[in-house]
């Protein structure tokens, strides 16, 4: 009896928090925790695997650069590796799960709680969506229920070592769809401070839905959510590059305008710790590749996207999209991390997603109309033309009368140009079975086949060795 009493008071004495840790007990703190539910790892390493680059001389090549370029297994675990993307994204997901575990039973304003829950569901869905598309086969309705996906994590980890298994791609997509739709329903922009662009706003969530249904092959839903965003005036969500070029004072300023949260086309901004954007590192489009991409176009006009550009190495070029920012470990030190602000969702993508659905639905005119909205803000002094005129132009440009195919090829080229250095090309290569050929330093060529196993990134070594996850076939 006595000892029970002593132990009881002892327990209270020992309840004291040992430090300044924060307790998750109100919706404001839950929202602050979600501010970190956005992965700070970049997936732009996929650029080095894509046909956006060729062998660049005179740059420093870290192991991940060569491994990506030759589609070998990545050994590193730090920035710009699949492993870093994996761990950092699951870390972001853990933040969402901590919030989702307690939000319903938390004290506080119900509407605020609902909005927080919405953001948590969206961040959880987004993290898993990016993971499944990098580390598993692209969604294929026929095989998705057997294709191994990634573990979909629905609750916080509370033990030292927990075992996880891979869900199938179908299961992962189902979980994403559930979280996405519920999140879309609950999210409420009015609770965000500042521009809100570093969070899933309703617009960003719509863009996510647009990408999700496009990747899932659900054209109607893709069009539906794209329409909800684009509304009557899609050009609102297309960056006005000629205007930016006009406005900028110098190149640095152009970059800042490009990813400014005030630009309506920028839907979701994320801080990413990466060396990707440093022109003296890795692989870049070589000058011939760069001009082949931008200079040859159906209009024969100057593509505003090709300039300004940094010189990368001896023979490469880097479009100026990223600000060079540095996180220093202390004021007097030159040690730290390079980081940049990355555009996770842009209005242009939604427009192009919708156009792609229209093409698949053989609604070529509607698709070309969308593509012209983009073109009018990309090509210097482009005359006003109708979709019908563009259709003709494409016929002669591609030398084919298959308008649907012409539109599709043109669309793909626009996607490649619009999102160069942003990692999007890799998903197109993957979902559309595009082969990639790379020239090596000695002039030799290597090829990534249409349905190459290596298009599915290998599960990180630690997750296989320690976590016991099934590796992808090689």
């Amino acid at each position, binding site marked *: 009896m006595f000892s029970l009493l*002593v132990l009881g008071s*002892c*327990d209270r004495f*020992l*309840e*004291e*928090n*040992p*430090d*300044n*840790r*924060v307790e*998750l007990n109100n919706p404001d*703190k839950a929202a*602050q*925790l979600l*501010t*970190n539910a956005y992965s700070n790892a970049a997936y732009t390493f996929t650029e080095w695997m894509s046909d956006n680059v060729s062998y660049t001389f*005179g740059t420093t090549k870290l192991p991940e650069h060569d491994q990506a370029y030759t589609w070998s297994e990545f*050994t*590193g*675990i730090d920035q710009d590796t699949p492993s870093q993307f994996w761990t*950092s994204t699951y*870390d972001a997901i*853990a*933040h969402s*799960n*901590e919030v989702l575990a307690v939000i319903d039973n938390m004290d506080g304003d119900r509407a605020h709680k609902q909005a927080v829950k919405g953001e948590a569901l969206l961040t959880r869905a987004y993290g898993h969506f990016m993971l499944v598309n990098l580390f598993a086969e692209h969604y294929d309705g026929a095989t998705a229920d057997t294709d191994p996906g990634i573990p979909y*994590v629905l609750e*916080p*980890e*509370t*033990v030292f*070592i*927990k075992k*996880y298994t891979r869900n199938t791609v179908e299961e992962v997509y189902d979980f994403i769809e559930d979280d996405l739709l519920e999140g879309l329903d609950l999210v409420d922009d009015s609770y965000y401070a500042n*521009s809100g*662009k*570093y969070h899933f706003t309703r617009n960003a969530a719509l863009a996510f839905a647009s990408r999700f249904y496009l990747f899932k092959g659900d054209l109607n839903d893709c069009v539906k959510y794209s329409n909800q965003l684009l509304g009557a005036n899609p050009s609102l969500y297309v960056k006005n590059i000629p205007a930016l070029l006009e406005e900028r004072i*110098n190149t*640095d*300023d152009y970059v*800042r305008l490009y990813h*400014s*949260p005030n630009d309506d086309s920028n839907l979701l901004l994320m801080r990413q710790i990466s060396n990707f954007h440093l022109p003296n590192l890795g692989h870049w489009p070589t000058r011939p590749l760069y001009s082949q991409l931008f200079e040859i176009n159906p209009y024969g006009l100057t593509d505003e996207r090709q300039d300004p550009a940094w010189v990368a190495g001896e023979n490469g070029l880097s479009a100026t999209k990223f600000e060079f*920012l*540095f996180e*220093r470990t*202390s*004021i*007097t*030190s*030159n*040690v730290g991390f390079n980081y940049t*602000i990355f555009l996770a969702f842009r209005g242009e993508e939604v427009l192009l997603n919708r156009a792609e659905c229209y093409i698949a639905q053989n609604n070529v005119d509607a698709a070309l109309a969308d593509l012209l909205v983009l073109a009018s803000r990309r090509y210097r002094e482009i005359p006003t033309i109708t979709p019908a005129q563009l259709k003709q132009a494409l016929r002669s440009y591609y030398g084919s009368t298959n308008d649907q195919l012409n539109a599709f090829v043109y669309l793909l080229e626009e996607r490649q140009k619009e999102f160069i250095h942003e990692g999007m090309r890799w998903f197109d290569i993957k979902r559309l079975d595009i082969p990639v050929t790379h020239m090596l330093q000695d002039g030799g060529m290597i090829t990534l086949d249409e349905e190459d196993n290596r298009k599915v990134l290998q599960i*990180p070594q*630690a*997750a296989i060795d*320690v*976590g016991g996850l099934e590796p992808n076939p090689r």
Partner: protein
Amino acid sequence: MMKFLVPIVLVFGIFVQTRGQEVTITGKVTATSNGDQLPGVSVRINNSVRATVTDMNGDYSISASPADTLLFTFVGYNVERQIVGQRQVINVQLEEVSTELGEVVITGFQEVQRKLFTGSAANVKMSEAKITGMTDATQMLEGRVAGVTVDNVSGTFGTSPKIRIRGNTSINGDNQPLFVVDGVILEDLNNVSADDIITGNANTLTASSIAGINPDDIESFQVLKDASATALYGTRAKSGVIVITTKRGKSGQTRVNYSGNFSIHLRPSYSQFDIMNSVDEMSVYREMYEKGLIDITTSVKAQNYGPMGKMFNLLNEKQISWGPNYTPNEEFLNIYETANTDWFDVLFRDYSLQQQHSISLTSGTEKHNSYYSLSFLNDNGQTIADNVKRYSGTAKNSFQFTNRFSMDLKLTANYRLQKVPGTQNRDFDPITGRYRRDFDINPLSYALNTSRSIRPYDDNGELEYFRRNYAPFNILREVELNYININVADIATQADINYDLTDNLTFRSTLQGRYATTQREHVIHEHSNQAEAYRADDTQYIQEANQLLFTDPNDPGALPKVVLPEGGFNNVNEDELKNFYIRNSVDWSSTFNNVHNISVMAGQEVKYTDRMARRVDGIGVVYENGGIVNTDPLMIEFLNQQGIQTYEISVDRERFAGFFLNGAYSFNEKYIFNGTVRYDGSNRLGKSKNARYLPTWNVSGAWNVDRESFFQVPWINYLKLRATYGLSANLGPNTSALLNLRSAVTLRPTDVETYLFIQDLENSDLTWEKLNELNVGFDFGAYNNRVTGTADFYKRNSFDLIGQIQTSGVGGNAFKWGNYADMASEGFEVAINTVNLTINDFTWMTNFNVGYARDRITRLDFNPRIADAVVQGGAAVIGGPRRGLFSTKFAGLDSRGIPTYYDDTGEVVYNYDLQDRENLRSILKFEGSAEPRGAGGLSNIFNYKNFSLNVFLSFKFDYKIRLDDAFSPRYTDFSSMPRSFVNRWMVPGDEEFTDVPVILDKETLEGGFTDYLSAYDLYNNSTVRVADGSYLRLKSVRLGYSLPGNLARRIGANTASVSVEAQNMLLLYSDPALNGQDPEFFSTGGVALPQPRLITTSITIGF
């Protein structure tokens, strides 16, 4: 236990039988030394239980037969044997034991007679260990106790030495023993992690509380080594315990004692180090000029420059003229070529004085006694940039209220005022694998690393400036304008209550309250180089290169600009400690039939510790203008953009509660059994209740073999065998079982907001780090105790250690800390004390001890990166010791003089992937433990009449040391060069004869051959940059003379003595490959300084 005691009593009762012809023997027992009557001496008939004790006058009476042998035993005295024979009066003189067995062992919880003590413990009396002139008492333990390793990693006042008792018990956590002063654990002033001691960061100076203790107040140290000795400390004792007992008052005459130590520092000199003179240096600089590394264009935009750069800048400004055909101005260079500056002379003080004055007073009656002491330490400093003052005071009063009730009250306070050179914390650069510390003005680092062709003064005796951080620099001016003021105030009060409830039952209580505050104020004056560096924008080159200038995003197109238009910095760190401690215990002890002694102790303790740390950076402080502050708003933006906060606050709350029970039984002082159980709880593991509590236990036994009747070895005076087995524990590092969320501010160009992040996920499996230990040992005395000694062997298994593992990452933490590592260790300790010679007034005594411990990590799932493994301090790798030193495998210089290495396949390469963890063992060479495995000491004491000579050597062995970084792909004319540069690679073919790499030419440096550049970083960490750490040091030599009584009285004193002592005079042995680098000292810069060489004159007078 009681149940099985009864039969033992019965069995031995049988032997009580009459033997006839008995007579009554009487006598008096006195002490040999002073003839005092000894009350309470046990008088016993051998092989019988019949016994008595002497009365207040030392008299006894016992019946015995002529054939019996009487044994006279008394604590602190040698056993005396007398055969009765026909005598009826037997008077005996007992000789005081000078050996350990006579003592009591003070565990902090209780005092146990040494012969009844079952654990492994060593006592060190201050009077024997004292090295006059040493300011930190724990440093004196070096080489004194077998199994205790003391690394005095820095000689700067306040730096606690790295102390290990029996090696390491944790891989990543604290291995420093627990310090206990007068029964209460001495909390550190602030939390400095285990590996931080060697960083040289300013916080290392204010970590330890020991520095506040005046060594003259210390009576003795008790080092508790094995699980039995430390059992009562339960979950805090894994790394051993050092119990410090301070002096207390004595009843009787009032006595006043003064002691004064006057020490002079001897400064280091270049002869101890491997540094080029300025003539050789200039030839290297000329080579650099010839290779295009220094010329007029590089010099104008150089971050740092020495004489060569200065010449080119003056040429550029047309202040001097070119030599013939636009060659360098030789006349100008010659001035510096012959400068050969002795930086030690410039920066270190000659015969700088350190004084310690200490005065104490004791007085008392039978009812009350007191001890008061005051001390003052003033050290002018080894260098021109450091000094310290310490004031301390103690008041101790003991009251005997009644026969049963007594109380001790203690009040201690100390205050420290210290100045050290300004320093920043060092940073680890994982890209190069090097530590960096910008703006370092540590005088030793400066002397070792700065070109000797740079001069402090010009021809007119004015300060001469060169360039550092793009701004003018002169070290003499910099140490005046860039320094840290340290203030420590520490006050504690303690009460110890003793109440004898009955004759056998005692209640004890100890209460302590303590408050300490520490302040470090880093003054960076507006004219200091560190502040001026923020204003260095002389040319466009410098504007573009200077990292301390700000590129304003709102002012596109502008060059980087100054954000510290005026003023310097005032960076303040404050730590506050509040500590309360209460312990209550009940002791019960009884002896049955004179032979069965049972004692039981039960108790409870509670500790409450709050720590608060605050950092405030004042920016733009104009000292010359009364300290007004002008902070440019752009500076704040500049800092925010890089994620740097100017204000930080953190708290640390520790709550601890424990219950303990200890039982001891001894039979006839022959067989002793001891057992302890403890149950501890702490809040450190978070709110999780399953992790919060931990029971620990221990069992031990001892056998005093000499008390056996069959043991008839006349030359052995005592022999005790001991054995212990038990569990102890410690809280590990990074211990939090609960979800740990922290807040921070987002690092973005816009949309800045507060956010929370997951520091640690919940870990409901977390528990304490634990240690199982088996110890066996023996203590002996022989030849009238002229040879005494002790030896111990132990095996330890540390388990549930906190280690880091890599996870699947899916849960959110790619790396997790948890109980995932085990470490096994074994070792031995031997200590031998001998009296070698006693001839008339001459005695010669020797104490020798050695300890050796080997640890091996048996479970640790996760290796460090190659970058972490090759650093100076070593790294934890499975199968290796706790800190193993690893080297890159040097494969010679290539045909251009660039260093090359073998990779894991044996191929010759220039670079490794420093981030690699997988192939660490096959890529790197394991050199050995980076921490000493063996250590010991040897002291010889010679006494002749009133003279004494004490020669003390300490040694360490079996470990490896990484030599300080000396090579770099790019050198400047600001840096010194190692003397081995004379043998550097100069022309093809030299690679056959030398390992010293070439000075790279401009083309290689700037051609983007990054592999070649990293080859130099690997070189510093390669197999050729390793030395054996073993050393033998003449730690101290002391010659003392105590005045004979009549002489002392002539000066009005009762006792007086003088001594002269020299410490750290020389290394008798160290690996020649060290080239003068002290194996004990890590030259990390910052506030670290080597152990000073001191010559101390000491005077002690008692009135």
